[in-house]
């Protein structure tokens, strides 16, 4: 199969916090459920990981509707972390993921420190969980989440408490809604985080001029999509040059080229968010796009994707 020199299979594998990934591509939490719905459209075994939607100890109702609004090159959402709670998540969603040859990263949210710690402790005992991603960055809930992610001291403290309990590597998901994201990234690292992921959505607002009211019932929502990609690339670059732990980059990745940009900016892996809403096969196209790029550039390993200066 390798007799033609431009026909070869580049190695997309990468290891993050001791966990081997077959490729660096995964869904962004909240844009993929627990994978069951999308498994009718794509082969989950091809993904580097499945990242599940934020789960909390007890079920959460989420926000009133409308929860979504399209904007130019993006979308606002204010789902409000609706989730079925840990019991049903473990029984149904984690069980569904048992059969797949891909990593499982569970995104964890909570109203209080105690809720985060309880969820982390329980998920630590689940064999199917490979890593935990701590959501301290959702802008759409009034208690918890982002309240823990904006203040470096609070974030470092929560991270260190989670690290003491967790038997799984811990990723801290960072918000871009701060004046200097490298401060919160360093706080996560100081607290013992094994990796950081960024960016969560940028807080925004849309007003319906005909109805003369807010497009979202929550008034504000998180902006995602290609509109935020350059902001995300800049922040991934800044953070990956400020901390020594791996960075998972996300924000408006629509295709292989966008993903390569994230990798060049310093990310070790890439998450794909609302691109899946635009095309259920987006994650696969991103993997193939990275492969095509590496072949075009004669790169053999993912680590060859580096900036020239």
């Amino acid at each position: 199969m390798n007799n033609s020199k431009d026909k070869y299979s580049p190695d997309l594998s990468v290891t993050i916090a001791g966990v081997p990934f077959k490729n660096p591509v995964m869904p962004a939490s909240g844009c993929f459920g627990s994978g069951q719905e999308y498994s009718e459209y794509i082969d989950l075994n091809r993904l580097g990981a499945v990242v599940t939607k934020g789960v909390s100890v007890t079920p959460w109702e989420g926000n009133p509707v409308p929860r979504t609004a399209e904007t130019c090159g993006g979308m606002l959402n204010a789902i409000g972390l609706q989730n079925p709670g840990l019991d049903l998540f473990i029984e149904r969603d984690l069980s569904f993921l048992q059969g797949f040859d891909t990593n499982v990263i569970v995104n964890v949210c909570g109203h209080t420190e105690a809720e985060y710690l309880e969820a982390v402790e329980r998920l630590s005992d689940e064999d199917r969980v490979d890593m935990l991603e701590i959501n301290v960055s959702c802008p759409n809930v009034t208690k918890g989440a982002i309240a823990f992610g904006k203040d470096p001291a609070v974030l470092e403290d929560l991270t260190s408490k989670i690290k003491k309990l967790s038997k799984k590597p811990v990723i801290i998901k960072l918000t871009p809604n701060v004046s200097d994201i490298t401060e919160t990234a360093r706080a996560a690292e100081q607290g013992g985080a094994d990796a950081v992921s960024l960016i969560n959505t940028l807080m925004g607002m849309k007003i319906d001029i005909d109805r003369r009211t807010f497009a979202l019932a929550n008034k504000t929502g998180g902006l995602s999509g290609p509109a935020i990609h350059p902001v995300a690339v800049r922040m991934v670059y800044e953070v990956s040059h400020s901390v020594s732990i791996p960075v998972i980059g996300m924000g408006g990745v629509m295709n292989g080229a966008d993903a390569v940009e994230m990798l060049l900016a310093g990310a070790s892996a890439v998450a794909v968010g609302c691109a899946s809403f635009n095309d259920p096969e987006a994650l696969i196209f991103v993997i193939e796009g990275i492969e095509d790029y590496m072949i075009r550039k004669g790169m053999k390993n993912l680590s060859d994707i580096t900036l020239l200066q």
Partner: protein
Amino acid sequence: MKEKMIAKVTENKEISPGIYDMRLETRGLNASPGQFFMLYTGDGSRLLPRPISVCDCTDDILRLVYRVAGSGTSLFSRLKKDETLEIMGPLGNGYPPEPPENAVLIGGGIGLPPLLYLGKKLSACCSVTSILGYRNSDLFLKDEFDRISKVSVSTDDGSLGVHGTVMDVIKNDPSLIPQGSVLYACGPLPMLRAVREYALSEGLKCYLSLEERMACGLGVCLSCVCKTSSTDPHSNVDNARVCVDGPVFAADKVELN
């Protein structure tokens, strides 16, 4: 594996101001009344697909009647014969297919197209009554409802039929809905609320097709939820997903506050 499809437009004409009737060449689609398709704009600045209800579906033609409501549907309205667009579906549950003794279709505005498809299917097996609400005398699709059902009309401006809403039609002539009828409704939220109240108070079986802002259309993003009267088994809270658990719900299973 399921996937998006590319469909060729065979016809796309304005049948009433802002209302378009589009026919797409498809093969072997089996869409039920009440189900919908996601239509993609193909424009990178408009990320999200638009959910459009099925107005008819045969072996080789998918018919979608839609209203231009924004930039996405405006793009669709400009598609010409032989141009293509990406679609995905059919999605959602659709109306229950079992024919009742007497079916009453209650619709308003752009809620009418899916009811026409339902009426076509049901009229082969039972008697069908249609109560249709319009803004004014521009009665789009009414001639097609006439062919399959006994039709009563209301208009907001009183220019034709009963002056008022579909509920005024029912108040004027309660005999339109004999005991044992099953109601099938689709239309604006205030109409659905009124129909729901009426059905619950009269003890009639009633199915409502809901509309809500969607992103994925596959039950993943949890954008398009509606309040349920008891805990939903999937969400584990009192929210159901309109895109996959609906869009059709039994009236007593949802709260329309």
